[in-house]
């Protein structure tokens, strides 16, 4: 099966279908790739290292792969994950088949699906201009439906408030969790991202999915345009050709800054274009996490 592109996903109705399609793609991709497959399969295994308990060696796996693997206990693999969705108005920008918010919904839904499938607990925090909406993390299959339903109902609204979201999450998350943030990170406050990254300092595992529209990356406008803000009353009339170079420099510097900041904070960072294959995004993410776990 080919990786799912945005055009294909846009033809599917609802987050559930889209997320499921992405997950199928991910699982299919994992199955096809021995390395990736092992990564997911071995979610319950660990390659033997000196010091590991010999009695936990998986002899079946040895017979199959001629390598030593250590079986892990059930309670050790249980992951507590919180999926944070930026529902600000800027996330509603769409130049192609999918808006940034739709991509964020699909990715977070697919990730929730994978988590629950692995008996991990998945929770949801939606940040919109109207405030925060939380679903506590649970591993039950029924909870997944709640998460997906909640995602379905998110509409872009208000300004991006990463600052508030960080404080809210710090207050809500009581144990070590995987916090996956799906946002365009368009918060004018300089310290907003760092505030989010503070969650990492509190022993949480943090993953940032920065979702951008291709038009935001390439600024493909020619004619004089009146740009309107999607979150407030700002507006500006410019000749895009005149400022294109400057815009690309500014935006490139912003992305580079985010990437650098995340790297410095030891946080997984994934730049997601709304026109790219989302299963590839998730596979990339999972592979990176597997690498980190080693």
């Amino acid at each position: 099966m080919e990786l799912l592109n945005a055009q294909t996903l846009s033809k599917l109705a609802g987050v559930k279908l889209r997320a499921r399609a992405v997950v199928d793609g991910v699982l299919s991709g994992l199955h096809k790739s021995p390395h990736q497959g092992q990564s997911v399969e071995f979610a319950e295994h660990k390659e033997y290292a000196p010091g590991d308990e010999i009695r936990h060696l998986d002899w079946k796996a040895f017979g199959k792969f001629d390598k030593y693997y250590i079986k892990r206990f059930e309670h050790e693999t249980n992951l507590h994950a919180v999926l944070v969705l930026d529902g600000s108005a800027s996330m509603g920008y769409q130049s192609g088949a999918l808006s940034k918010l739709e991509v964020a919904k699909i990715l977070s839904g697919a990730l929730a699906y994978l988590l629950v499938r692995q008996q991990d607990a998945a929770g949801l925090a939606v940040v919109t201009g109207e405030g925060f909406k939380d679903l506590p993390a649970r591993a039950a299959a029924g909870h997944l439906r709640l998460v997906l339903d909640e995602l379905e109902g998110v509409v872009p609204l208000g300004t991006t408030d990463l600052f508030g979201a960080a404080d809210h999450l710090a207050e809500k998350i009581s144990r070590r969790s995987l916090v996956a943030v799906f946002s365009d990170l368009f918060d004018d406050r300089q310290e907003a991202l760092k505030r989010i990254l503070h969650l990492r300092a509190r022993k949480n595992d943090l993953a940032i999915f920065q979702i951008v529209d291709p038009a935001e990356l390439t600024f493909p406008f020619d004619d004089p345009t009146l740009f309107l803000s999607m979150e407030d009353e700002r507006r500006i009339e410019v000749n895009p050709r005149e400022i294109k170079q400057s815009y690309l420099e500014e935006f490139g510097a912003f992305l580079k800054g985010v990437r650098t900041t995340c790297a410095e904070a030891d946080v997984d960072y994934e730049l997601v274009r709304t026109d790219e294959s989302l299963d590839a995004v998730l596979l990339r993410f999972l592979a990176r996490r597997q690498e980190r776990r080693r």
Partner: protein
Amino acid sequence: MTFAHPWMLLGALAALIPLLIHLFDRRRPRPHPFGAISFVLRSQRRTASRLRLRRLLLYLLRTAILIALPVALARPELRRNAQIASVVRGPAATSIIIDASLSMRYRDGGTTLFERGREQARDALRDLLPDEPANVLICAPGALAPASPSFDRGQLRSMIDSAKPTFGSVDINRCLDMAARSLEENPMPGKRLVLISDLTANALHLNLPPPTLEGPNGERLVPEVVIRDAAAGKQSLPNRAVVDLRIDPALQLGPRAFQFTFTVRNFSPEPVHDLEASLKLMGQVVAKGFLDIPANGAAQKSLSYRFTSGGVFPGEVVISGDNLAADDQRAFIVNVPKELRALIVNGQPNTVRYRDEAFFVEAALSAPGSPVREITKDAEAAFHDSFDQYELILLLNVSAPGPEVSQRLVDFVRRGGGLLISLGDHVEPDLYNKQLAELLPLPLRMIKTAVDPEEPDADKKAAKIGKISVDHPIFSLFTGQAREGLMSARFYRYMLLEPAPGGNPGNGAPVVLATFEDGAPAVAIARRGQGRVLLYTSTVDRDWADFAIRTSFLPLMQRFSAFLSGSLEEREDIKARVGESVSLSSPGHEVVASVRSPSGATLPVRALDEGRFLVGPTEEPGVHQVQDADGRPLPDLAFAAVLDPSESDLARIKPDDLSAYFGEGSVKDSGPDSKQRRLPFWSWLIVAAAVAFFFEGVLLRE
């Protein structure tokens, strides 16, 4: 500033196009909600000032392009001459005088002074106000008064465009007077003369009164004089010129050898060393030499050449070129005597050489440089000889020949031969008159004895030559001391002739070229058919006269021979100076139909009386070829026109002298160089537009 095509300036209105586009073509921008508007705002803030500057630059560049192109097409010229501005520019009838003398051919910086002067004349024409009438006078040799001033600028401009420098000297004072008079009739109160010249001292004579003109009430008015110096900025115009050439036979080098002695003047304060000079004949260099000439001095050089055959040869003496090329050469025509075969019929041979009748004649004709190759025979042998192999027969004291020989002699002469008859004791007048009646210029009458040579005071009583025709080529040499040598000869005995009947020499009438003191003919000539007969009434030995031992005997005998063979007076030394007319005499009475200058131009020819023609005035130096009515060349009439040496002296008049001459109030010196004053800058506008176009492209690509 002036514009050649001012209507093109209307195109500059196109400069409004960018402004109009800016004002009226403001398209409504498309609204677009955009998530990353913060970055747009930041970018706009960052680039706002640069964009404003860029837009302003673009607007300025586009406007500059649209202004520069039509303004350039209008061909503007800036004038920044303070001296011009200082000229009182009241409206005035103007006459523009352009010096077209030889010196204006001087090359300076790749162009001639005349070219520069012509440009200055165009400037002067452009400087005129619209209500100023003008005329143009090209001051050439023989220039005519200009037409009345008019407003036909196109005609004046074409006059200036078609003007050419001459090779002659001009009288600028005369030209100024003519130009001033041409303004008299014009009702405009202001009168102005614009003189364009190199202001050499020989062109403008400051000892003559300055130009004036008659006012409406008969008063004398001094016109405003504007001088434009075609050689401005030059303290002096150094020049070298061949100013003189003398051609003499070089007897020491053998027959047909000539020595060309020429004088080269150095009109400059610097001496000249090793100046190459060459002698060219028929276009080929045949001799070369070098000269050292002191500053402002002259040097002579002689080059020699021996011709292999006789004839008329054109040639020139050439020195290394300088800025005035025309006077670096001097053309000439040299007449090289043809070799003459002469039969000397000795009527009184003698074993004692100096008593021999032909002794002195032989000596004269065989002298170095003589073109005559003679053979002497006694009468009996000579008369059995064939006359056809000779061009000349000399009957020296020969008894009258028989009828058959006489007839052969008549035939010989009529076919073009020359016959010299000298007399003596063997000549019987009656027999001569009978046998040679058809040939003798005048019939012989009787022998006259002035004195017996044996008498003690014979020298005093002897006859002498009384009168000679120095106009005739035979005697043209005998002037000054040479004449004395002829006149001092003593004649003891001579033949009297019958009186001359008168008539046209061309029809065979005799011409007496020399007479004794008593009026008796000494030398008489006559044309018989195609030939000539010369009768010398005394002896060519010492029996009747001592002329044979006189210094004038040798050249006279040679000239007798040359004349009789047709190679003497046929080549008259024609002196021709550029700018003057030339008088040509056609000895054979050929009709001179056309004369062509070295450049191929045809000169006017006017027939005078008795085979004389007036040609010219000549316009250029060099060899002029003459043709008859059938287009055949007449080489004997070809002539070389030479330049007036005074025009080679390019010493310039001092500005103070000019001011003193024309008066401080009327002289408005137009300044050093008109090219510096007039700044045609349309080409720079085109360049500026191209540069603006380039930068506009650069800005657009950013």
